[in-house]
């Protein structure tokens, strides 16, 4: 019997997100990300604000994190965690000249560290700014490897290595090591408020399917038609900061 393919997706509930960066730090640790690398960032937004469109809300008082939008007492704020959106129509996959960035059947987007030529076309093509490049040799704050600690291959292609080769692009893998063995991505497990929900969109009874179909989960920059597999539940309640 053919194994039914998965279609992995993640829903991030902005009403629950408290901007604590635990997911970002957890991501950095488990993936042994070098100093200065962040596969996952928590942006300070206004409720319902996508892409920093100032026509949707008042501007923040400054360009720093954790600064509410608007003027006191009409202030509002929400957090927008952003990592690779694992788009179904991924611009990075379309522009990669050597098929180093590729899409798996389960919807995730991977980078083959052994194929990437380092042209950085994908960085220019990504609307979400989630890709980081190994400009020089990886610089770590500790002198030992943390996290997964070993190479991981998907269909024979090297999609993760703790020792980053210089001159290749990297980004969130949706914790391919974990989802391939039935676990959830690490950011989902470590989130203290349960703001991240992970599941299979091909399973209509899964929580993510329900949230996407019935609870109005939205995508980031949907007008671009990239059709991400990461969805957001915007802050709805008035006066929530």
């Amino acid at each position, binding site marked *: 019997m053919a194994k039914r393919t998965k279609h992995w997706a993640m829903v991030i509930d902005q009403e629950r997100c408290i901007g604590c960066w635990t997911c970002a730090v957890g991501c950095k640790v488990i993936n042994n990300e070098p100093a200065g*690398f962040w596969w996952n960032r928590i942006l300070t937004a206004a409720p319902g604000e996508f*892409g*920093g469109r100032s026509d949707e809300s008042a501007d923040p008082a400054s360009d720093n994190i954790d600064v509410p939008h608007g003027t006191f007492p009409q202030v509002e704020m929400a957090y927008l965690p952003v990592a690779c959106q694992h788009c179904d129509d991924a611009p990075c996959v379309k*522009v990669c*000249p050597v*098929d180093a960035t590729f899409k798996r059947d389960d919807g995730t987007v991977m980078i083959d560290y052994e194929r990437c030529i380092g042209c950085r*076309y994908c960085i220019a093509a990504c609307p979400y700014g989630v890709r980081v490049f190994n*400009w020089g040799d990886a610089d770590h704050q500790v002198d030992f490897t943390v996290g997964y600690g070993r190479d991981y291959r998907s269909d024979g292609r090297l999609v993760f290595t703790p020792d980053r080769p210089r001159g290749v692009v990297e980004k969130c893998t949706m914790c391919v090591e974990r989802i391939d063995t039935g676990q959830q991505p690490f950011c989902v497990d470590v989130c203290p408020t349960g703001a991240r929900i992970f599941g299979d969109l091909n399973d209509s009874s899964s929580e993510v399917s329900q949230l996407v179909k019935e609870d109005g989960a939205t995508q980031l*920059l949907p007008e671009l038609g990239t059709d991400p597999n990461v969805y957001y539940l915007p802050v709805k309640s008035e006066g929530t900061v």
Partner: protein
Amino acid sequence: MATFESSAAATPGLPAGRRIGAGWFAALGILALWGLAAWIYQLTQGLIVTGMRDEVSWGLYITTFAFLVGLSAGGLIMASAAEVFGVKSVRPLARLGVLTAGACVLVAAMTIIPDLGKPQRVWELFRYPQWRSPMIWDIIIVVVYFVFAAVDLGLMTGRIGKVSRRRQALRVMAYIGLPAAVLLHSITAWIFGLQISRPFWNTALLAPLFVTSAILSGTALIALVALAARRFGKLQLPDETWSALSRLMAAAIAIELFLVGADYLTILWGNVPSERAALDMILPGGSWQWVFWLEWVVGGVIPFLLLVLPRWRGRFGAMAVASVLVLVGVYAFRIELVVGGLLKPLLSLAPGVSIGSASPNAFQLVGSYHPTWVEYAIVAGLLAFLGLLITLGYRWLGSLDREEARA
């Protein structure tokens, strides 16, 4: 000051001329070697020694690549226009044009190599081509264009083909050359223009704009080479050839500024924040306004006036200055496009985009880019190598003519 009218009798061709001083070759050679040394240094350290980071992830190398691709236009268009449109006045420039085109596109292809994080994997472009990527198509057209220029030059100098067939072959080549040139610049434009992630690039105007700026900078380069050959090599061209170069350049400046202006107006009128963000940095008052001034005034209005005002029109000195300014302006346009498009990310929210190095800050809200000495050295080295190729090629053409004259 010498004017076109005072130039010597119209005898097209490339006569022997006096030797260009050894100083020229020495200077270019040293620059080229210095560039090579800088590249070797970059190979040992990685691209960390450049000023590029994750926000502005393309810099001088890609800018120079786009610029050199544009420079290669003039030559082939000149050679083809003589045949296709019967523009007789530019025929004397055909061989010089094709030589320049081939040299420029060769050095353009070389410019890609130092930009790669893994240059040792460049062969993968041919082993694992991904056909949806505009970059693959650009590499194909660059290779085709170079081979085409080489064959065309071979035909023109009688190195390949039978004498009886050569005339006809050249005609066919001219008809292929023109669309090939348009394709080369269009595909290079589409590398940028198709990207929805960069609103500043994402305009249908980009391909026509690249074709125009290619004709503009290509003509300026041909004019400069011809002027240098006139000065040092005693090249003599009929007045109408100089005048054709001058008029073509002036027209291309006007069309280029019209297209860029139309693009600016569309963005300003539409007032979409993500599109305004990039343009506001370039327009007067923005942090990158020097690009605007270089493009519109130094490389736009001033050379245009030098080429059309009766006071300067027809003077070799004015034409030389105008050509140099045009090249500066077109280079500024490439910087405006490549770097300007990358400065403002779509998700422009604090703390910004991770830039891939820990100091001074791991994040940037607005991109910044300051090329390092390594980038300047490598680019200068490549341009010096281009200068060497053109000078040597020109001498080779001259020596062919002398052989012919003896025979």
